């Protein structure tokens, strides 16, 4: 392999041709192309500079840290302009380091071209693209990092501190089971609107409240069924007595009127009784377990660019 220095080498995307005059253009390119915070994908003829490799290493390690991987131990950890020699291992390490993240996320590995010699600027660009794909995608950690059972009611967080799988009755929305990383749980519990709930859970009040809420729900439903049964009984009683009156009536018109009226009053009472039985049926069905499967959904979280906190938090599915 030819020995070249970072700052002095200009390598084309087509074959690593060393261009003359690169040295005097290096600073200009650095200033114009890489001064902003958004990385510009290198193109043919660009200059390989020490800062490129250093910046790429930093980005790769940031992404690794984001998904719980240790910082990669680089060969030639300090790149000195005009002194450190470009080596294939530099690119190989970058590829390996970003591959680890893809493996962690269960994503297909990025495709890289066979590595030179000569080393081309495109080799760095390919790694940069692989980093950009991961760095700009919504946070996908909870599916692969430490898994904990979390239950989420509508617009509220329920984090069971006991590690027990629980389901809760709610009238405002459905409970959704998700898996989240420990770090994410820490972030959630750090929010002001979940602190109170988390404190309540720590005191063990939430499961008790849940049990009581369910018991009250059953009681109210059963009582409603009983009231409907009683009301239906009263109505049917009136209907049956009216029919009996019709049998004893003196004229045909009176007989028909009483019997007809009594029949439909009785029918109405039977319908009310059916409603009462329906309420009891609902309680019975409830005791048989959930009639729909509890959905397991990943959460979608977008981490803020600075890596601290998060900007968008969303649970899809309803």
């Amino acid at each position, binding site marked *: 392999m030819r020995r070249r220095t970072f700052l002095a080498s200009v390598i084309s995307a087509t074959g690593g041709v060393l261009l003359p005059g690169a040295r005097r253009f290096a600073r200009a390119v650095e200033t114009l192309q890489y001064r902003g915070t958004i990385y510009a994908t290198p193109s043919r003829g660009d200059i390989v500079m020490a800062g490129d490799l250093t910046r790429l290493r930093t980005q790769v390690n940031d992404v690794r840290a984001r998904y719980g991987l240790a910082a990669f131990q680089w060969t030639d950890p300090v790149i000195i302009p005009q002194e450190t020699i470009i080596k294939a291992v530099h690119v190989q390490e970058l590829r390996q380091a970003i591959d680890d993240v893809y493996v962690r996320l269960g994503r297909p590995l990025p495709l890289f071209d066979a590595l030179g010699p000569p080393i081309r600027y495109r080799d760095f660009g390919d790694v940069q693209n692989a980093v950009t794909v991961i760095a700009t995608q919504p946070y996908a950690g909870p599916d692969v990092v430490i898994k904990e059972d979390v239950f989420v009611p509508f617009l509220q967080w329920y984090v069971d501190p006991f590690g027990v799988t629980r*389901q809760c009755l709610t009238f405002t929305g459905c409970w959704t089971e998700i898996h989240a990383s420990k770090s994410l749980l820490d972030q959630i519990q750090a929010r002001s609107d979940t602190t109170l709930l988390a404190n309540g859970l720590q005191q063990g009040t939430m499961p008790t409240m849940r049990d009581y809420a369910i018991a009250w729900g059953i*009681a109210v439903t059963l009582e409603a069924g009983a009231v409907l049964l*009683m009301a239906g009984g009263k109505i049917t009683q009136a209907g*049956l007595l009216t029919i009996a009156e019709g049998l004893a009536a003196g004229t045909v018109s009176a007989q028909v009127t009483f019997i*007809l009226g009594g029949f439909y009053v009785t029918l109405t009472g039977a319908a009310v009784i059916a409603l009462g039985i329906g309420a009891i049926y609902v309680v019975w069905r*409830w005791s*048989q377990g959930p009639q729909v499967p509890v959905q397991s959904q990943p959460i979608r979280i977008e981490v803020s660019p600075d890596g601290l906190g998060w900007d968008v938090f969303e649970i899809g599915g309803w």
Partner: protein
Amino acid sequence: MGYLAFAAVAFATLSVIAALLYVVAVWVRGVQKIVVAWRAAPHSNRVTFVVTMSICLVLTAGLLSLVPWGVLFKVLEKTVVQMITRGAP
């Protein structure tokens, strides 16, 4: 408050049992009244009763048979019952 909830469940369960017994008693008593009235009624009254009740039964049965009960039941199952039973243990 906690044990009160379970007491309410027990009370509601007893209420349902009492209500069911009441419905049965009401129907038995009502049918007995009709039987007594039938025995005491003259022949013409019995004819009127049979004819009127037959017409009512046929008409009602015909109308009720037009209702898509199966569809209604499935809709109820998919909405009300599932919504309520979603949080079942």
